[in-house]
């Protein structure tokens, strides 16, 4: 067993039971989070979704959140993404895709003193900014990156 696989599993364990269930595909995010925020998951805009999750759309840009996602998606249907943060006391991490019909694609609740790390796959319909939003120590932080979804071909 390689180090990669171990670190992957370690990272997964670091999220809460709910996070694991969502990340591993055992639960649909919508079902898992329904009780918590129907409003956030049905929002059509990033701002509304963030407001639905955290009460306010205002987030603070943070260089302490690292969003790892391809510059150009190999397959828009399954785009690998990971969010790591060095912020302390992480309460939750959410991933949003601006141009998706429903931007909020996943949310992960953290409990206790856990490493802020989430790795999952998201679906993207078209080229869009992807947001990672982290709530830590009562504050809401975010970072974003553009991911291109292209028709393909014609290279080289």
């Amino acid at each position, binding site marked *: 067993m390689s180090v990669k696989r171990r670190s992957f599993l370690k990272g997964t364990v670091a999220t809460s039971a709910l996070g694991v269930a969502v990340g591993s595909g055992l639960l649909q995010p919508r079902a898992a989070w329904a009780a918590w925020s129907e409003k956030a998951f049905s929002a059509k805009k990033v701002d509304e979704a963030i407001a639905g999750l955290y009460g306010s759309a205002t987030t603070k840009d943070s260089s302490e959140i690292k969003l*790892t996602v391809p*510059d*150009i998606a190999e397959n828009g249907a399954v785009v690998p993404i990971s969010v790591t943060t060095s912020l302390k006391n992480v309460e939750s991490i959410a991933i949003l895709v601006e141009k998706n019909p429903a931007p909020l694609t996943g949310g992960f609740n953290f409990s206790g003193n856990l490493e802020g790390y989430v790795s999952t796959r998201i679906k993207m319909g078209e080229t869009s900014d992807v947001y990672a939003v982290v709530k830590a120590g009562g504050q809401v932080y975010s970072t974003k990156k553009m991911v*291109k979804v292209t*028709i*393909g071909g014609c*290279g*080289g």
Partner: protein
Amino acid sequence: MSLTRREFLQILAAASAAGISLPGYGVAAGKEKADSDIYELPKFGNVSLLHITDVHAQLLPIWFREPNINIGIGKMQGQAPHLVGQHYLRHYGIAPGSAEAHAFTHLDFVEASKRYGKVGGFAHLATLVKKMREQRPGALLLDGGDTWQGSATSLWTKGQDMIDACKLLGVKVMTAHWEFTYGDNRVKEVLEKDLKGHIDFVAQNVFDTEWNERIFTPSVTKTINGVPVAIIGQAFPYTPVANPRYMIPTWSFGIRDEEMQKQVDKVRAEGAKIVVVLSHNGMDVDLKMASRVTGIDVILGGHTHDAVPKPITVSNASGKTLVINSGSNGKFLSVLDLDVKDGRLRDFRYRLLPVFSNLLAPDREMAALIERVRAPFKAKLEEKLAVTDDLLYRRGNFNGTFDQLILDALLAVKGADLAFSPGFRWGTSLLPGDTITMEDVMNQTAITYPTSTLTDMTGSRIKEILEDVADNLYNQDPYYQQGGDMVRVGALKYAIEPNSTMNKRISAMELKGKPLALNKTYKVAGWAPVSQPMEGAPIWDVVAEYLRNAKHVKIGEPNVPLIKGIKQNPGLA
């Protein structure tokens, strides 16, 4: 009639007497060299690397016209490699009309081609490689990939001709791009059966989609004259996007700067004194990577087919990285001499040597291999299809004349309203009066997904495709580019504004003098579908059929769009 070796040298000597030197080693060295031989290079330092890339399976000498349109936008404007024609000559101090001017630019291509003869050819390249090795013992030959694809014989032998030729040439390390279009199983088979013990196939940026584990060895360390030199492979990051995903369904690529950084740090910690990245990123991506990843001494790059005669020095947080790109089609050999002392790089010398076939006697063993490879296919390769009245070429941001020919064939044979042809950067040239053989057609079309197609598309879908490809070419951030040129377009006229942004670059689309209606449906011919394997005539049959009927080909001006918002760009001649 091309020059004899002796006449060639006389011209070089005359150029040198006029105070014009070959780039790289300065005036004095150039003068001495021109009097004797451009391939007599004084050895320098203690670690030498030889680099070929993007050979595209061209075993025989060829013509290859460099682009006259290679526009750089944003920070890339006016910077190498986005320099063409006179701008290129001025930037590098190369004399107009010289052999170098011919090798590096499109200027006076037909006349200069007749004068200086063909370029490349593996038998000639082999002679040059041997000569460089004699001059600099221990020199390591690296291949940047796009080697197994681009000709009839490579396609029909699944790359075997090139694999055998590279082993004979003495390639020691390689990375890849088009190699992957033979499929994951073929690549694994070649690694196991052919390369093991001969050529290290390295790629740090290819991972299994399920477990995120590496498919290939990321790097290899070779000791050259006592100096441990690590070579890290960087395969083409967008292979599953630019080429069929289904060929490599479980392999994920990407640029992966962070993984690259980890790899550099790892090989340094393990004792490497020199770190080389053997890259198929494309030059703009190499330049950006060099500014972000620290600890790389040299990037030897390819993919965008840029022949750049001097390294570009890029500063980053902890030092400097030399970025080199070595052209394409076997036309050039990079020779990099490094002076490494006390565990660090102190100085270097670099030359990008054009391979003038007339100046290099063919290596016998390689010539025999090439003949053996071609023998079973000889009749098919040599079939004469038509004669061209015009210069035929592909390379450039927009339609070349050879693309125009393919598009004309698609329009005629398929009965389409308009046609698309991929913006590949490979594809050799033919001079006016040359006979177009089946081999020449294959040199433009030899891919593993050659199906020609006829599809109904709305005007808005057509615009969407043009916008998408334009963004892959002209995005201001090279990490969002794919390294191909603009899709070639037949019958449709349009305007393009490279400096604009996604979905705003294309305008004034016109078909037969009428504006393209966004809600109307048109018949669009094309080839090289990437989404799934398709049934249908391969493109080479479509073009061959067209040529057999035409007998003579006259292209005139290729269908280049109106280029807007670009004034005095050194990437536009």
